[in-house]
């Protein structure tokens, strides 16, 4: 069953990208690293050189350093949001699927209700309560992740709960929560993992969008989205200021997407050749 997974090119490319991303993010946070947020107006808009591999931005900050630090911000937000979303969404979906009664219907209705609020709108609404910053980003994206995970787990678990070995477990005297943890969850794990990779990728995109409009990570913490905002007016002058963070975002998201795609084909192999 596992052989075809490790032969998928997409899996390896995705994994390498993500691993590199993680390493870059961690590396950039090491105490000995030079602080990229240091403003040195005298060195503004330098072209790439030995000292600054990617040059500097309009405030003299090292572009490479900023980009590397931005990785840690994006990853932090994405991981935080997924933890929030899955942490609440998965148990919700599991328990709602256990019994088809009015309670589970109501829960799933409320769940789908949140879909009406795109993450950006939630961020806007939260902005005045929570304030801008990394908490706002994680909360807004995380809240939007909850119904995603709940719905995905609910749909998958529904078909599992009706299987006979669940009835057999009930007859043996197991309580629903034990059945959910021992039987249903392991079988739904593949789907959950795939969704996690998808939401991580989407989380990075969302964080970039939030930072772009100023609702995400606050200065001086570097963020790819905000870098894009600042690069916008200078695009004629120094296109690399827009190219670099954009490419970073695209690569990061692509890494997660490739990984997610490869995993989802492994989890749910469709026989392409009929039966």
């Amino acid at each position, binding site marked *: 069953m596992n052989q075809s997974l490790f032969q998928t090119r997409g899996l390896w490319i995705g994994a390498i990208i993500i691993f590199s991303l993680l390493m870059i993010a961690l590396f950039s946070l090491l105490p000995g690293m030079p602080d990229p947020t240091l403003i040195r107006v005298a060195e503004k808009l330098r072209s790439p050189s030995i000292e600054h591999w990617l040059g500097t931005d309009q405030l003299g900050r090292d572009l490479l350093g900023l980009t590397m630090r931005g990785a840690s911000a994006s990853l932090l937000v994405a991981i935080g949001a997924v933890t929030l979303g899955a942490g609440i969404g998965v148990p919700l979906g599991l328990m709602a699927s256990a019994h088809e009664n009015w309670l589970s219907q109501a829960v799933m209705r409320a769940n789908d*209700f949140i879909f*009406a609020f795109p993450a950006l709108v939630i961020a806007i609404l939260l902005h005045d309560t929570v304030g801008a910053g990394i908490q706002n980003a994680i909360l807004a994206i995380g809240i939007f992740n909850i119904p995603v995970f709940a719905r995905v787990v609910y749909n998958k678990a529904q078909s599992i709960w009706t299987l006979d070995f669940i009835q057999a477990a009930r007859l043996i005297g197991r309580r629903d929560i034990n059945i959910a943890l021992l039987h249903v969850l392991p079988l739904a794990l593949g789907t959950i993992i795939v969704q996690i990779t998808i939401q991580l990728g989407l989380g990075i995109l969302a964080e970039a969008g939030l930072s772009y409009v100023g609702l995400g990570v606050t200065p001086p913490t570097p963020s790819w989205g905000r870098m894009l905002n600042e690069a916008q007016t200078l*695009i004629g002058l120094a296109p690399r200021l*827009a190219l670099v963070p*954009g490419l970073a975002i695209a690569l990061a998201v692509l890494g997660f*997407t490739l990984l997610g795609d490869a995993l989802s084909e492994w989890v749910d192999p469709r026989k392409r050749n009929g039966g």
Partner: protein
Amino acid sequence: MLILIIRRLVGLLATLAVASILVFFLLEILPGDPAQLILGTDARPDTLLALRHEMGLDQPILTRLLQWIGELLTGNLGMSHTYHVPVATLIGERLPVSLPLALISLLLAVVIGIPGGILAAMRRDTWLDRAVRVKTQILLAIPNFWLAMLLVFVFAITLHWLPAGGFSGWRNIPNAISALILPAVALAAPQAAILARVTRAALIENLDDVYILAARARGLTASAALFRHALPNAMISVLSIMGLQFSFLLAGTIIIENVFYLPGLGRLIFQAVNQRDLAVVSGASMLLIASTIGITFVVDLTALIIDPRLRR
């Protein structure tokens, strides 16, 4: 059948009600005194009191909630304290930009995405299929505002074919359209990618089903079986995804309008957030949310009409 429609309608209204209550309370919790915000920190206490009374801030919460809902229903979204103009008027001015933008993007996304997905499914596992998959993966990984910037760089700054931003009204139609092209493309690109993937996946899933084999056994050619049977069934799942995507499209306009300096609803919200103009933020957000809920309702209804299994 009628009962099902009415049930959906009731659901729609209930969701709208809950959404508005939620928005109200969210804005309720925010720290700080709106009156003080308007008058500044060194306003005199009695002026503050007078303004608070005028804004109705000294009423009990329940009364204010009911007032809020009542105002929503009558289309009174309050008064913008930045422009001193009713919020509804402001929104009305911005809609002629945002609405056409959203519609053009939707059209582009559908016209490119769905046929792309169909093509990929028809030529499954060939180079064409792989090309479509790779292109969609890349398009999905790109933030749409970055794509927007790249488009501006290439088509506006370098080639001078299209404007880099701004919108001068509908009186000059060719100008208006050319101002909306790049934004629409930037908005439509990721949507088209998603539609292509979903269409392809749904189509392939249906093509592997027994009823397609049965259609072939009745003598239909492979493409007849695809277009007459697999496609309509696949469209049902695609339709529900389209409904979900619409809310992302709307949220996307907020960012895109900023990139292109378009005087639309999205830019209004963005500026209002920065200016702490609560009335505008709440009113415009409610509009976005209401249209999302409305679209979901329409999608549900369409599914009900198309799929006989839902009519039990």
